[in-house]
């Protein structure tokens, strides 16, 4: 597996954008200006980027309540996302969805989703459409370890095999379903082990390692595009913030996140590898950090200065108008 300089820079930029976006939303949420709930993806960036770098706008993904990272990785515009989270009229969904309902069909992003385990059935539909259209498209659903236990997910694994759909199910196992440890709530050591029961391959990959995710994702997506059928991939990773902003996280070890950040942070591992191998320079990475920081700053300023929906917007965007 080889990646050229442009691809490496793209991977780093996307992961840095997600991290900076989430860190900033974490800070901004504390001010009380952001309505509703937010669930942050910081720490899990290598998973979203490792998969979405193989996709084009025709490919579909379905996300979770922790969806900001998937949106950014799939190419949804950051300014629009930030405005959406602030509930502004110029947000990705006109400020009516908020954090858990960001969707951009033009980018193939079918939506973050407040219902745990709701993504897998959606991608069965998208996968079926791609199969009928014979366009080589694939559909990916991201679920958490909690979502992996839902009947909707298990039914979708069955359906995807029965219909031999070009679908990838990505179980992002961050160890906790809200505050319940996956070791208590998941019946097996590896969520990927369940794949065998549905007649599809199941792979476990280190979700902190962009290169490992990218390679596994590439093979599964290639297999799906070629008609090989669905795959279940479990990314073992960690989230840096609580289940939601405001979560006191009393269920986690005192040093748990600190240890992960020091030993397995995906941006740190990526930077170390590419600079030690002489593939990118620290100066190139620093320049991206600077650009991304400015981009996030601008997106917040833009959101804060944008108008909120009015009562006149109440009945718009409720139904799709078919021609």
């Amino acid at each position, binding site marked *: 597996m080889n*990646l050229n300089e442009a691809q490496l820079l793209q991977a780093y930029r996307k992961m840095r954008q997600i991290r900076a976006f989430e860190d900033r939303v974490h800070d901004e949420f504390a001010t009380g200006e952001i309505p509703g709930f937010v669930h942050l993806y910081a720490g899990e960036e290598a998973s979203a980027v490792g998969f979405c770098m193989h996709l084009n706008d025709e490919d579909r993904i379905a996300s979770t309540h922790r969806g900001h990272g998937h949106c950014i990785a799939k190419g949804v515009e950051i300014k629009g996302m930030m405005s959406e989270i602030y509930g502004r009229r110029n947000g990705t969904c006109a400020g009516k969805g908020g954090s858990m309902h960001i969707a951009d069909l033009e980018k193939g992003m079918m939506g973050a989703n407040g219902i745990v385990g709701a993504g897998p059935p959606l991608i069965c539909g998208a996968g079926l459409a791609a199969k009928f259209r014979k366009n080589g498209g694939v559909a990916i659903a991201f679920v958490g370890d909690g979502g992996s236990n839902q009947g909707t997910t298990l039914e979708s694994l069955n359906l995807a095999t029965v219909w031999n759909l070009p679908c990838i199910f990505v179980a992002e196992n961050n160890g906790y379903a809200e505050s319940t440890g996956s070791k208590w709530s998941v019946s097996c050591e590896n969520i990927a082990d369940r794949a065998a029961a549905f007649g599809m391959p199941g*792979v476990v990959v280190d979700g902190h390692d962009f290169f490992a995710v990218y390679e596994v994702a590439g*093979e599964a997506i290639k297999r799906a595009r070629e008609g090989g059928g669905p795959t279940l991939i479990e990314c073992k990773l960690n989230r840096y913030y609580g289940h939601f902003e405001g979560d006191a996280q009393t269920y986690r070890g005192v040093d748990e996140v600190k240890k992960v950040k020091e030993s397995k942070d995906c941006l740190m591992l990526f930077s170390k590898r590419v600079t*030690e*191998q002489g593939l990118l320079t620290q100066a190139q990475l620093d320049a991206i950090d600077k650009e991304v920081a400015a981009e996030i700053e601008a997106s917040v300023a833009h959101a804060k200065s944008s108008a909120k929906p009015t009562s006149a917007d109440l009945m718009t965007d409720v139904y799709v108008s078919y021609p």
Partner: protein
Amino acid sequence: MRLQDPPKEVSRPIRVGILANPASGRDIRRVISKASVFPTAEKCNMIQRLMGALTVCGVDEAWMMPDKGGIATVIKRFGQTPEGKRLLPVQFTDTDIMEIPEDTRLSVRAMIAAGIRAIIVLGGDGTHRLVAEECGEIPMATLSTGTNNSFPELREATLSGLAAGLVATERLNLDDVTRREKRLLVEVNGETRGMALVDACISADMFVAAKAVWQVEQLRELYVTFASSEAIGLSSIASLVNPVGRDEDHGLGVQMDPEATQKVMAPIAPGLFAKLGIQRWDELQLGSSWAPTIDRGVIALDGEREIEFRAVDNVRLSMDRLGPRVIDVSKALGAAAKQGIMLSDSNE
């Protein structure tokens, strides 16, 4: 039910380590080659079966690596009689599990510090390699639960547990029933960076990434300690040009070139054959060392990409017979039968 006590006085408690890798058998080869999945439940069953054998031998305690809820939980929950009495007392090392290879290394060190007399390993070539790096003189029994397993044996766990139990309780002469394995060492800039028990392969790849090796276009050099004609994985390439036994005092180096006219069709993963151009092969002598012929790439140890190197790095490989001391289960059980260890005049 236990065997009669060993004839000579053995200091107690007798402890045996069990190192089971919960992650083995789940890599990218499930996607690219339909490789089998080794369920955690079966690993747990194997552990309980081998614990039965250890109990019969009179082992006092098993030591295990903790994990995040799979194997350890099952052993804690089910490794006891309905009355709540444990079949075999089990201690877990205090390893802070991070789900990285270092977990295995730290756990083996802790088991050795606790005084284990033998260690039983359940995993693939990679797991056995990690244990071998740490276990020193502790005899190792091998059980295959990985994907391309050349080093560990596919064997009923009860019998491996019995052999390990007989060794740990000092009923058998260690030198008669164990084999010192060969190993390949990799040094980068004067520092030992890794060890292989079966094969070290140099590829022109850039990244370790998903670790498993299966794209053969990039492979350039292969070095093996042994190469069985029944092997699957990279060592099969060597076995098909010149098989080498575990007991032979040499290994084999194979130079590969996609343009070479001589080709070999090798089973490099379950269900996956590849045609590789073979430029030449040479015997590797114990004690010899050499450098890769390419100046940038990745070194795979026992089929897993582990070390990235570049032109400025000084990379050296070497081979010796200072690998782990592995219990030969056939020999151990044969010796036990010959010595009448399993016979008894008692009804107890």
